């Protein structure tokens, strides 16, 4: 059974790029354009094997999404990766404290993304 990954980004280009990459890797992909939409999907019962989120988004950014997702019972141990243009050490530390599993800086090649996903998704 293929693994499900939730991707969150306000950029349509990023959603297309990451979605196509993951589908080529054999994963099932759900998407959301901001933290609010993503949180709604998680609360509605979506149980992804991995969440990949941008940081700078309208309505709800990635940091708040990580914080709120970790508060949900079904997502306490779900791997969450950030995929962002930000590269400052302070932001990384903040994400780590909130419960992120890893930090990826854009742009990331499809090959590298699939390697990382395979590492963090259990049973991939």
């Amino acid at each position, binding site marked *: 059974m293929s693994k499900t990954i939730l991707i969150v*980004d306000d*950029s349509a*280009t*990023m959603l*297309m*790029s990451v979605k*196509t*990459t993951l589908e*080529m890797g054999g994963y099932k992909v759900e998407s959301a354009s901001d933290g609010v939409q993503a949180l709604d999907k998680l609360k509605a019962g979506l149980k992804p094997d991995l969440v990949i989120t941008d940081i*700078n988004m309208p309505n709800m950014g990635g940091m708040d999404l990580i914080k709120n997702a970790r508060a949900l019972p079904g997502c306490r141990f779900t791997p969450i990766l950030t995929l*962002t*243009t*930000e*590269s*400052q*050490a*302070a932001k*990384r530390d903040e994400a*780590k404290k909130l419960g*992120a*599993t*890893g*930090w*990826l*800086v*854009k*742009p*990331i*090649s*499809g*090959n*590298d*993304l*699939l390697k*990382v996903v395979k*590492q*963090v998704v259990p049973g991939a």
Partner: protein
Amino acid sequence: MPVLSQTDTHPQVRTPLTGFGWTGVVGMALAIGYHYWSKPVLAVAEFLPPVCTLLLGGILGLAFSGPRRVNPQPVQPPDAMASLQKLLEAHPNLGECFTCPLPPTSSQNHVSSVPPAPVSLPKRLAPLHALLNGTPALTNLLGRQLGEVSSTTETGVLSLMAGLKGVDEQIAKLTTALQDSQTRSTVMHTSADSIIRESAKHLEAFRSYSLGRFERLESDDKAIKSMIAHMESLKPLASSISSIAAQSNMLALNATIEAARAGEAGRGFAVVASEVRNLSKQVDGIAIRIRTELGKIADMASADFSISRHVDERQWLETIQAETERLTEVLKEAVNELSSVAGSASTAAIHVRSSLLEALGHVQFQDITRQQMEVIQKALHECGAQFELAAHYVQNPNSSLEANLPDPDVLLTQLRLSYTTTIQHNIHDVLLDAVPSQEDDDGPSIQLF
């Protein structure tokens, strides 16, 4: 020549120097106006060539200069601001350049009040000056940021095109490999077809031979059986001969006995009997040999026919085996070729997939440039708001600019905080000679916690 007024008991003098003094005032005003508001002044200057300006100044000096007393008591100088106001009222276009609020004239004041100090033009223009002074740094910074956006876009597009070119190259290699394989396959097909046709002919011939051989086999078998039957039929003859020989031997023995009985008269008969006995023994021996030889001949006949059949069939089988081996070699070659093609296709597919995955990463430059452009847009919007404030300030004499205009350094700091990429920070710090914050320390582009 000084002009003396007749209306006063005290002689008064009007001098051309006063007129030139006023020329200087007008000239300075025009220069300041030109410096800050070129267009309206130029519009006025089109109709006021420099000579006319001087003449105007002189006329103004004669018209507005008050009478000078030559007596020891100095004449109170005229109200300059009131004069300027009258000038502005006379030339409204010129007045648009000077919208600074002018203090009330002496005629409006009470006799006992002190006229207020006039607001100097430089003081009025100071906030605008500060605004304009801060603009080049900001526009330069935004220009460099825009340059970086252009550079990022170009790099992204070139990388994407290189990735797609890589895909095209892989597909071209695969196409070439497939075409070569098709050529080899055609040759193998021709060769296999030829071998198959030859084999078909041989098989047909062998089938004919087999049919004929079978028929011959049947007739040979019949012949052999017949021969063996004949030989078998000769065996009884040999037995008969042996039997006859045995009987002859008995007769000879009886004759010998009778000859012995006959005595002297039977002596010759005994000899004959003895010879007959010898003859019968020889005949018996011959019969035995005939029987033995007949058996051998029968065996040999069967064996010879069998060997002959085996030799013929072996030749055919060897021929068929050779053809089969040739066909097998061709098939092996074909299988290897298919395997090679499958391997090439698999390798090419892997490379194509990898190139496509790389290309999908390169398109992400669009999101990076979008974020950079959003920062620049916001900064330009802020610039626009500041210039709107400045325009309002220029058009409304009672407005104040200092209270509404933010500190340029604060604006630059806010701009720096809004950056989302390292390169934006670097450009900012380099252009403004700022010390990079420790928070800007980059880590790896992929980091698992």
